[in-house]
């Protein structure tokens, strides 16, 4: 017979710590030494399992958890290691590792149907196979359903192959395949240790798998709620910044958008009450309403009136403040006509090229609380070097050691940035406000600056 013969499945080995001393420990003078060795070995194993638990707890990312597991297992526990994970949502088996720990690939489960690997996956019981150094259909075939990976392991023949089930929360989610080369076969103890490690690893891997699924769902949903990439209209320069109150999220209750084409653009910046995910969902709806309204009426007053009507009819107690600026650049890029309207939003500041800072005169009711609101528009002209700066209340209400940041600080900062590009103005304001906070929590903050191209 060529190939492999099943050996004592590790599942039958006694668990770590409850093991009877091996035979040679019962003989005379050697026993003391062996006891000590045993003790040292046991300590090492306990340390290793503790290590596995803490190390794997640090990562929720599946790929990083797998890499860490490999780093723990190799070279101490095996000369070669591969992980197979079952993917319930598809008929595939993901394979990771081998010689290159970052390698990954996938095979059809059908291809592995009659293999030892699938047996372990189904039964949740480990299998140890001894592979002799000739022949083809051996234990390596049985545990490694991939040509490239198998030939790596084949180089280690004669070898022992151990497939350990990764069982977490009641189901076997994968198999850890360990290979050892000549003279380093797996003892019963090694098998038991591998199982303890696998048990710890399984929970971490399963958590990471669940996290990854959630991340995929969340990032798809979130992508529509993130701040958009700004267009680069001819004749204008645009820049924006957003900093979320929930530090780990890139979404929140402040939003901005740019609509339009050619020489006619609409900049929208707004703030829904609340923060975090709930607020972000509402911004999604407000943004969509604005987009639709803009399709029918390009005037800021008209857009806001439509937004107000939609939000009012939605019959929620939520409201939104918004500033809308319709910007029409001149063909030479040296000036632009602006029409402004606001719904309960602080009026934008106009930073003139000469350093004067003017508060635009525009007012209007918040959107979503009253039926049938009309919004008045204000017109202004941006000349070369002027910047129109829109912002949300998270900017001037930022709380630092000396109270609120306030509009006065903002007005005092801006003259130095007269004539600077919108990106610089936004960065400077963001930095000044965040430094002022000195590490304190803050509301969502959004900034949008517009200037002529030249």
């Amino acid at each position: 017979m060529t190939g492999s013969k099943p050996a004592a499945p590790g599942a039958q080995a006694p668990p770590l710590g409850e093991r009877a001393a091996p035979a040679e420990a019962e003989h005379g003078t050697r026993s003391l030494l062996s006891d000590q060795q045993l003790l040292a070995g046991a300590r090492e194993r306990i340390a290793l399992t503790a290590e596995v638990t803490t190390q794997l707890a640090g990562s929720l990312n599946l790929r990083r958890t797998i890499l860490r597991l490999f780093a723990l297992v190799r070279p101490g526990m095996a000369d070669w290691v591969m992980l197979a994970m079952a993917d319930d949502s598809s008929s595939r088996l993901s394979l990771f590792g081998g010689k290159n720990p970052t390698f990954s690939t996938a095979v059809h489960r059908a291809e592995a149907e009659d293999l030892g690997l699938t047996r372990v996956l189904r039964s949740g019981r480990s299998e140890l196979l001894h592979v002799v150094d000739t022949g083809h259909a051996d234990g390596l075939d049985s545990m490694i359903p991939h040509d490239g990976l198998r030939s790596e392991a084949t180089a280690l023949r004669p070898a022992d192959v151990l497939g350990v089930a990764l069982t977490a929360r009641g189901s076997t989610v994968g198999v850890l395949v360990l290979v050892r080369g000549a003279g380093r076969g797996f003892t019963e103890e090694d098998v038991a240790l591998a199982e303890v490690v696998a048990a710890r690893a399984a929970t971490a891997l399963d958590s990471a798998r669940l996290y990854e699924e959630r991340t995929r769902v969340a990032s798809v949903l979130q992508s529509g709620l993130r701040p958009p990439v700004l267009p680069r209209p001819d004749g204008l320069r645009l820049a924006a910044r957003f900093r979320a109150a929930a530090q780990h999220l890139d979404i929140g209750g402040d939003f901005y958008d740019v609509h339009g084409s050619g020489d006619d653009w609409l900049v929208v910046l707004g703030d829904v009450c609340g923060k975090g995910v709930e607020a972000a969902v509402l911004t999604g709806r407000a943004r969509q309403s604005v987009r639709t309204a803009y399709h029918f009426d390009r005037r800021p007053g008209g857009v806001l009136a439509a937004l107000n009507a939609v939000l009012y009819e939605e019959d929620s107690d939520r409201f939104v403040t918004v500033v809308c600026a319709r910007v029409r650049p001149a063909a030479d890029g040296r000036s632009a006509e602006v029409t402004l309207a606001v719904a309960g939003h602080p009026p934008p500041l106009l930073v003139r090229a000469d350093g004067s800072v003017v508060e635009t005169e525009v007012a209007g009711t918040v959107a979503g609380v009253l039926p049938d609101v009309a919004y008045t528009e204000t017109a202004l002209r941006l000349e070369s070097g002027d910047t129109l700066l829109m912002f949300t209340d998270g900017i001037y209400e930022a709380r630092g050691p000396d109270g609120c940041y306030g509009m006065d600080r903002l007005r005092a900062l801006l003259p130095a940035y007269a004539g600077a590009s919108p990106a610089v103005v936004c960065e400077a304001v963001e930095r000044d406000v965040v430094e002022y906070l000195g590490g304190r929590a803050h509301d969502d903050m959004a900034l949008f600056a517009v200037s002529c191209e030249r």
Partner: protein
Amino acid sequence: MAEQSDQSDAVLDALGRFDGALASVDVDAAVAAVEGLLDDGVDPATVLVDVISSAQRIVGDRWQRGEWTVAEEHAATAVAVSATEAVARYARRVPATRGRVVVACAEREWHALPAMIVGTALRGAGWEVTLLGASTPPLRLSQYLQDLGPDATAVSCSVLGALPTTRRFIEASTSAGIPVVVGGSAFGVDGRRATALGATAWAASARDAVAVVAELPTVVPEAAPLPGPAVGEQAALELIHHRLFTGLRERWALAAQVVTTEQLPLDSVAAVAVDVVNQALHAVWSALLTGDPTTLSETAAWTAALLFARGVEPGLVDELGRLLAADLRDFPLARDLVDRHWTDGALTAGRP
């Protein structure tokens, strides 16, 4: 050989044009200068390091000498950002085949361009790059690390004040097993501060960053804890920073009025006093966390240079050291560092 020196002439020539473009805030000219080199086959890393970064250092010197305001420094940098974006467009033609690196600046770090330059160099070397930008909270970094599972984290740190938050980034990254490479002017001229903070690797330039990232281990152990007493003092100083800062600035500015002989410079001193006092306190934090006292002597030397350029009596540097040591009386390690190392720097630099 001839070809090589032709190329370095071309690079020098472009640097001159690029510097002019920064000074006149001319985006088109700056982009043309770098695109010209790239079209002639000059390696993106060379353009990033020997043109854009070199020109930015000249910008910094102009600010330091009091020739440019912060707003001018900022405007020039926006031009350099546009030029870096132009290089990035070239870099993106290289297929991304090597894995992913998350590039970020920790909180209090607003120098976003160095991170962008390093990110662009890595992209040009075939890495997928996720750039998180200036002053990123550690929670946001962790979220990205867990979501993306990158092969490495790269942290750029230009100001000493961001070294403590950079350490938090190192903890966040290594506790997930992800190697972390650091760089930027706050780390000084070699890898000592980086090693002390538990970084996996350090590199001196964007070019070296590419080489270093290629050699990183796949998985790293969690960074070892920093020495307890020093960490304790640093954390306490960070907590009371605003109070220390306000007290020092008031007293030092007062001293400045007494000591300054000329009329004109007072304004400039007031303008830089905020930066100088902050920087001095941040140098203390850094010395505590990295165990490297040269952060103090360097900052004293830097202060001396700033003041000298503004025509101020150099004795003010020592004055600041004395005030600082007095205010740190409850922090034995910090105080000892200031006592022993502030004056070194004040003596060696900036004097006519």
